[in-house]
């Protein structure tokens, strides 16, 4: 029985450890790692949310079993991670992240709408922000372009560690299409898109074209027609939206934008979509999102005070969405607005302003995974899912606790017992 015990100070350099882990995976995918911990927060879509004295079995990159220690037999040749005083959680997921690259390369503002742009080539795997993200337990981010234009391009769903190249970090490309509603993308030059009217007209025009493009190609690909449509590079990625492979994530700023977004993307075009930010009083139409079952992705602001709220009250925005019936609730950092490593702290603050603690944990694990349509792989500790796992010194919502160990896809990517602690 090999012990990869967290908390035992070993001399193995992290890099070597990675190499060993990677090598092991290639040579023997059947090798099993067992984590024994004080408490597991599963964040499962259904079923028990916490397990005392739990065991997680991992084989290769996948979770094999999750359950109480008494119910799970650890195979004799398993590598055991002894974490008796640790909590285990699924890796945290942030759907509104701008720190995957150099931060200077997320806004290309020549055209009002840029479906041809993607963040994929800007990813910098050796980026300091990502290193901090891992130390804060964030294992997956939707790295999206900024809000400088109305449609700023396609984001990439990526891991924060565990790969040396761009491709090794990518979870899914495209991750989502990024749209920014009014305020930030309003164009001061007096050309089209200086107002919501112009922006919404050009968005609809683009969506109409993309829909027709997808229908034409689908007809061709399924043999309904032999007429091969012309390739249009700017519309290629948009096809996946209509096929519901990935969603649109929409930066919204107030009730009008939240409502306009729900109408356009959900009611009219029937696209999977995520209402992001939703601040500045956006919760006032939260009931409309609840009716439609739309996911809300709240942050970086977590309370409304003074802005469109005149009662002198500090209202927790996530709480307001929850109270209005929005069940699909996730939190974001808009990193670097809030540093990426403080995603979990955003959950803490949401609780301070009234959100249920378990809802807060789910809002940085399973709910963002569902919203971005990757919950078949990520977001909870359940058999068959990717082994993206954290160990913490206790309830991660309490800022006095910290992340000691992070695994992504079955590989240990951060271990405070073996390297300088980052957060």
């Amino acid at each position, binding site marked *: 029985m090999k012990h990869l015990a967290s908390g035992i100070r070993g001399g193995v350099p992290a890099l070597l450890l990675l190499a060993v882990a990677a090598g092991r995976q290639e040579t023997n995918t059947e090798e099993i790692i067992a984590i024994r911990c004080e408490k597991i927060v599963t964040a499962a879509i259904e079923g028990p949310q916490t397990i005392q004295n739990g065991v997680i079995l991992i084989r290769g990159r996948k979770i094999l079993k999750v359950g109480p220690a008494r119910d799970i037999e650890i195979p004799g040749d398993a590598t055991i991670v002894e974490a008796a005083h640790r909590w285990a959680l699924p890796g945290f997921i942030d759907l509104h992240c701008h720190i995957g690259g150099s931060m200077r390369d997320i806004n290309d503002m020549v055209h009002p709408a840029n479906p041809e742009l993607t963040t994929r080539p800007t990813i910098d795997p050796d980026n300091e922000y990502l290193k901090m993200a891992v130390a804060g337990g964030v294992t997956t981010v939707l790295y999206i372009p900024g809000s400088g234009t109305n449609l700023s391009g396609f984001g990439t769903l990526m891991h924060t560690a565990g790969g040396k190249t761009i491709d090794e970090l990518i979870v899914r490309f495209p991750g989502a299409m990024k749209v920014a509603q009014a305020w930030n993308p309003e164009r001061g030059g007096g050309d089209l898109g200086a107002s919501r009217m112009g922006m919404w007209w050009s968005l609809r025009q683009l969506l109409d074209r993309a829909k027709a493009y997808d229908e034409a190609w689908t007809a061709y690909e399924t043999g309904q027609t032999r007429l091969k449509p012309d390739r249009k590079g700017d519309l290629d990625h948009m096809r996946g939206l209509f096929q519901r492979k990935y969603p649109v994530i929409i930066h919204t700023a107030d009730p009008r934008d939240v409502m306009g977004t729900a109408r356009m993307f959900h009611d009219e075009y029937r696209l999977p979509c995520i209402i992001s930010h939703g601040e500045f009083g956006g919760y006032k139409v939260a009931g409309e999102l609840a009716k439609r079952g739309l996911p809300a992705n709240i942050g970086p602001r977590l309370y409304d*005070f*003074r802005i469109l709220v*005149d*009662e*002198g009250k500090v209202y927790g925005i996530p709480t307001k969405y929850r109270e209005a019936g929005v069940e699909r609730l996730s939190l974001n950092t808009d990193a670097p607005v809030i540093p990426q490593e403080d995603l979990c702290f955003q959950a803490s603050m949401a609780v301070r302003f009234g959100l249920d603690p378990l809802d807060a944990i789910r809002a940085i694990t399973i709910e963002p995974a569902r919203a971005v349509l990757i919950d078949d792989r990520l977001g909870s500790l359940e058999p068959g899912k990717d082994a993206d796992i954290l160990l913490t010194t206790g309830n991660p919502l309490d800022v006095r606790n910290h992340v000691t160990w992070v695994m992504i896809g079955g590989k240990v990517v951060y271990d405070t017992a073996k390297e300088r602690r980052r957060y």
Partner: protein
Amino acid sequence: MRYWAIPAILWAIQEDSTPGEPAVAITGARILTVTKGEIVKGTILLRGGKIEAVGADVQIPDHAIVVRAADWVALPGFVHPYTRIGGSASGSGSKPAHVAKDELNPARDDYRAVVRSGFTTLALYPNGGPLSGQSIAYKPRGVTREQMMLHSPAYLRMNMEASTAVKQQLQSAFEAARRAIEASKKPPAPAPPGKPAEPAAPDPIAQFLKGELRGVIELTQPAEYLHFRQVMQEFDDPAQKLFLALTPEFYRAKDVMGARKERLLMRPEPAAEPYTRAPVNAAAELAEAGCEVGFLPGDNPSELPAFLFRVARLVKLGLARETALKAMTIVPAQAAGVGDRVGSLEPGKDADIVLLDADPWTGTARIMKVFIDGKIEFELKP
């Protein structure tokens, strides 16, 4: 009466008063005297620019010109206690000895809006610096300064800011004045033979400290009140007649100001609570706390026509009618040092009268006629 036609029937009362001058009787009006209560239906008798009688049973002399005001409301002309209207646009000096009379400009055309809005007395203050000079009270009629002048000096005008420089400036001015007061109490040195002692010009700051000259201090932030009182601590004298010109925001300091029964001049507007937009009826709260409230109508002639409406809104929000009425008339008149001449409807006072076609607190009352010194200076044409 420089801007509009004079009704022929009232021509007679335009003449200078002579022993045989006919009286004017305003009859049938509801009269708000301010100081002597309300007369449901009565007569105001004017003669020689003064109010001769006010009452329900006033005998109307033969040959009196009768102004029928049935269903109308008569109240004293409004007093604007703190204004730059009438002054020079380039401003004035900043010495306590400066008197605003020197800049009063009869040729300005603001007076029309002033009178139309019911104002019959104004106090012009000299601006600039913490101790900018002495104001004067004038009436918005006449073509020369002398015809306009009512009273000079009206008050010493001060301007407060919470800073070391301004606090020190006030402090040292008060100290110098106090030294002068102490020195004047000693027996005067014998005059040099052959030359009579020249009486020294009165020091307005010393006059203020002794209560011989009113003072008005302008404050912008509530904290400045506390800083001013800190400066005044060692110069305080119950004889002083001080008015504070401030903003509705000062309701925050109502308890400390109320405890001192401060006299205030403030804009007739609600304050907004911080972090909410809940309106606070600052005038009402300050009055209830013990302050005496007068209104500051503002310096922009175009906003003066809304003055009565603004006050009526505060009454709707709970300001006592009596407080509101006094705040438009007698309190500002006292601030301007002319409380014995104007600000209420009493025999012997100037015949400055506003006639409204409805109760002033309805918010829709129109100003039908304005009398200054017994003469109609404005009337609303049907």
